[in-house]
């Protein structure tokens, strides 16, 4: 990381976690990388957030603990914060700045890349349209993941988002093709036991050799978290664009990332927007999330699954809110499903995959995919109000039709959404379950489906005697 002859200054004006203010500097550029040496001579990387005349504001990525005004030395490198990337990084673990933390040596060779990346020209993108089978019905059937998509998991504390992410990593394939994803996991403020969980899960699936970990642990300086996803995505871009690999990137937990950003912003006395988060949070998140995708002239892809915990399960909190405005849909975990023991506890109604329509259907999955999915949504959206009514007037008082809606709702959650953590359903199995659940409703209630599809796939679920809804009201 060290350049031949960096310019060095001794002493700083002010230390204010995570910033230092250095004066008397010459020729320092905005956003260039810095090495801050504490009085013991240990180096911490940093970047220049602002230059004003002869003063530079530096954000210290190692945190400012132990820095003093007089004993601190600062070296300016004249280039942006960079990381050395190579294929050898797969199978290894690094900190948020790309330094090995697994006891191994720094990967040999490789290419030095600016961690900030460069925006992709929208005219050079390829529209993502290849269906990834995750083996999870509520994703594959109703919110399909597409190669090159950015699809976050919105979760809440204590809910099994890590297990869901790990299951996706283990099971993700293109139907009919050998799985060939390289996986990059960036952990921001991640706890040791979470790291162990992921490591163990990848190891037992035999994929650890294709996984690179970038970890800014919960006890690492929070400002390092700001660089972690950037470092990880820099490797992802290298693998996808230069090496034509398909890369699945998991960023967890983006709420920790945003909190670190808020900390820096408030140290700079910036005017906050909502809940103390800086006004540029949207653009900042976009600079990360938009690095996913596919570009023309490259075979590779970056599929991005950020995970975030919604503070107090509030989806309108700025972190999920701004994320949802940037990503191509979201998988939303629901506390009440979780309490009922349903795994994965994914709320169908709140979840969405915007790229689904281009990746499913005849030729890709099955001709009925989009329509049965829409039909399940339309029917399931009635369940809540019928449940509400049932709790007021009692289930017995419900009309026969409403009782079928209730039954449908239960089956939808218990048979379609709910599945085992190691259960890997093919997309055909998923769609068959979807039709079975839809079969609880009379054919006349399925207005979203054409006669042709109904003739082919619809079977009335009639194990039980059921009064004819139309006739006997």
């Amino acid at each position: 990381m060290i350049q031949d002859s960096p310019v060095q200054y001794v002493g700083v004006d002010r230390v204010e976690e995570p910033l230092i203010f250095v004066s008397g500097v010459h020729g320092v550029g905005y956003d260039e990388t810095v090495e801050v040496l504490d009085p013991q001579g240990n180096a911490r990387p940093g970047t220049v957030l602002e230059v004003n005349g002869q003063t530079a504001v530096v954000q210290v990525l190692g945190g400012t603990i132990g820095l003093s005004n007089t004993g601190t030395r600062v070296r300016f490198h004249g280039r942006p914060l960079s990381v050395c990337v190579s294929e050898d990084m797969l199978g290894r673990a690094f900190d948020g700045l790309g330094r090995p933390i697994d006891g191994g040596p720094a990967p040999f060779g490789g290419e030095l890349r600016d961690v900030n990346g460069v925006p992709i020209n929208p005219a050079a993108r390829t529209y993502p349209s290849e269906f990834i089978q995750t083996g999870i019905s509520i994703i594959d059937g109703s919110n399909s993941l597409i190669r090159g998509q950015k699809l976050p998991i919105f979760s809440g504390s204590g809910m099994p988002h890590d297990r869901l992410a790990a299951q996706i990593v283990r099971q993700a394939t293109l139907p009919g093709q050998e799985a060939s994803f390289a996986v990059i996991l960036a952990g921001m403020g991640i706890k040791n036991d979470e790291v162990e969980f992921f490591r163990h899960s990848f190891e037992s699936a035999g994929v650890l050799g294709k996984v690179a970990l970038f970890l800014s642990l919960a006890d690492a300086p929070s400002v390092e978290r700001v660089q972690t996803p950037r470092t990880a995505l820099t490797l992802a871009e290298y693998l996808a664009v230069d090496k034509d690999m398909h890369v699945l990137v998991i960023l967890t937990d983006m709420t920790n990332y945003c909190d670190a950003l808020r900390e820096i912003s408030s140290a700079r006395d910036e005017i906050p927007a909502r809940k103390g988060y800086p006004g540029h949070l949207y653009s900042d998140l976009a600079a990360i999330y938009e690095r996913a995708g596919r570009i023309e002239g490259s075979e590779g892809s970056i599929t991005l699954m950020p995970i975030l915990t919604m503070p107090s399960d509030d989806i309108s909190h700025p972190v999920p809110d701004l994320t949802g405005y940037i990503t191509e849909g979201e998988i939303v975990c629901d506390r009440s499903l979780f309490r009922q023991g349903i795994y994965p506890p994914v709320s169908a109604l709140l979840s969405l995959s915007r790229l689904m329509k281009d990746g499913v259907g005849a030729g890709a999955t099955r001709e009925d995919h989009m329509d049965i999915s829409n039909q399940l949504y339309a029917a399931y959206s009635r369940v809540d109000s019928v449940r509400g009514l049932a709790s007021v007037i009692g289930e017995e008082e419900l009309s026969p039709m409403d009782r079928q809606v209730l039954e449908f709702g239960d089956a939808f959650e218990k048979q379609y959404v709910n599945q085992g953590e190691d259960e890997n359903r093919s997309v055909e199995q998923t769609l068959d379950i979807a039709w079975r659940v839809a079969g609880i409703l009379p054919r006349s209630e399925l207005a979203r489906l054409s006669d042709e599809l109904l003739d082919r796939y619809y079977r009335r679920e009639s194990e039980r005697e059921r009064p004819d809804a139309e006739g006997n009201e």
Partner: protein
Amino acid sequence: MSGPRAQAGSIRRVSGPIVEAVGMASAQAYEVVRVGPQALIGEVIKLAGDVATIQVYEYTGGLRPGDGVQRTGAALSLVLAPGLLGSIFDGIQRPLSMLAEQTGAFLKPGVVADALDVARKWRFVPRVRPDQELRAGEAFGVVQETRAIEHRLLVPPGVEGKVSTVEPEGEYAITDVLCVMDGEAGPAELTMIQRWPVRRPRPFRRRRASTQVLVTGQRVIDTFFPIARGGTAAVPGDFGTGKTILQHQFAKWSDADVVVYVGCGERGNEMTDILRSFPELEDPHTGRSLMERTVLIANTSNMPVAAREVSIYTGITIAEYYRDMGYAVALMADSTSRWAEALREASSRLEEMPAEEGFPAYLAARLAQFYERAGLVETLGGDEGSITVVGAVSPPGGDFSEPVTQHTTRFVRCFWALDPDLAHARHYPAISWLDSYSEYVGDVADWWARFNPDWSAQREEMMNLLAEEDRLQQIVRLVGPDVLPDAQRLVLLVADMFKTGFLQQDAGDEVDTYCAPRKQELLLKGFVDFLRGTRRIIAQGAPIARVRQLPIIQDLLRARSVIPNDDEEALDGLLGRLADQLDELAREYS
């Protein structure tokens, strides 16, 4: 963006896209400057003494105090000429497709490229003779820019006089001098190019009232909340509720002559989607490829935020340019909230006093200025041209009381509120029929009446039905539907049918994606006939269960995606069968 290179200033401070430079005493507000060794493009946004505050449109990493700042003497201007249609530009009119070919998939800072191809030859057909008097806004010639659009080469605003020479018909580049005029201010050499500063509205003669619908082919819009040509509309909605799809639908199916689509701080893939799909799609009104009438401005969320602020003006200036040729232009801006956030970011770096939620106090004024550039006008050349503006609004947390939504509602006359509950139930477009409005309904009633004299009454009848259903639902939630009398259960039934069969429209369905006015009107009539007929039958004592069994219900529900726009016979057949089935049932209970 060339011009006299005046003396250089020097950088003092760099903070993100905001740069302060000293030695700029003679600079002008909104002058374009080139910053640092890479000559990054920037614009002077504030002057105090000899210090200029500059907003830089590219990544500023590496800029340092002492680096030079070159003046250009010119305001940020666009190159307006044939070649705009079918192109994609960034916020400051850099040609993105060309850059992708020349510099690869990533946008490196400091690259410059001509906005339009100066080597390309266009067939110029003169429309004037020497000695002819010409005024600003009149055409001196034309170029067939695409098969769909004739590009009228207008005398630029401020120029008038006698034609002294004009080139004969032939192939010319946009930079060739085609016509020389002698005016009071001396001779003026006209090429195909007009340069126009983006922040200044282009002049016209006068505004006119609009009584014509801009057909969007979206039933809930055209029938319930129509927009007039030259009108303004806002589409506010939480994430994922369908703003972008709706904007894409307008860009695809509206009967505008020219469409300017501004992707302002949104996703890269959404622009890619347009680029890959539009060339393949056919304009239902002209039969031409949609790309031939479309100009794309893409300053996606990850591109420099300062250029995002300009992208809106770049878009509307191009729209005005085609309006001045006498075209009906539609401009989509997705999303104006991201534009407002760009203002906020700049304002905060300038350390201005914020008003609400960190937005600068001038937010409302800027929004008003933007929407003010819409309208149906008599052009300088005496033609009628219009710009219809549809702006998406992305309220944080879906809360419409936030500043951008609130201010926007003051300046637009159509409000298409997207309802997250509808979107979650996959009722698309998720336009709330209770919270949305159009102030153009009265203005365009006559237009609709040409198709259907009963249009206003039918529209209102269905609106009332939906309002009544909403009231009844509150009772149903408490006690269930069974206690309601059949007349009220009929309201629930027909409202439900109407939502599925009329209000919903699937953008992904080949037939349903565009609904021609004639089909809209016949479908509306179908539901109204059904409502009126079954009301009578129920009043005669028929039970609701008999109504539910009418086979025509399934046909009505599926007609939107089963019957093509031009199959009037099938629509008439549907209405005929409907009448028969109602008659039959009525006879039973008479």
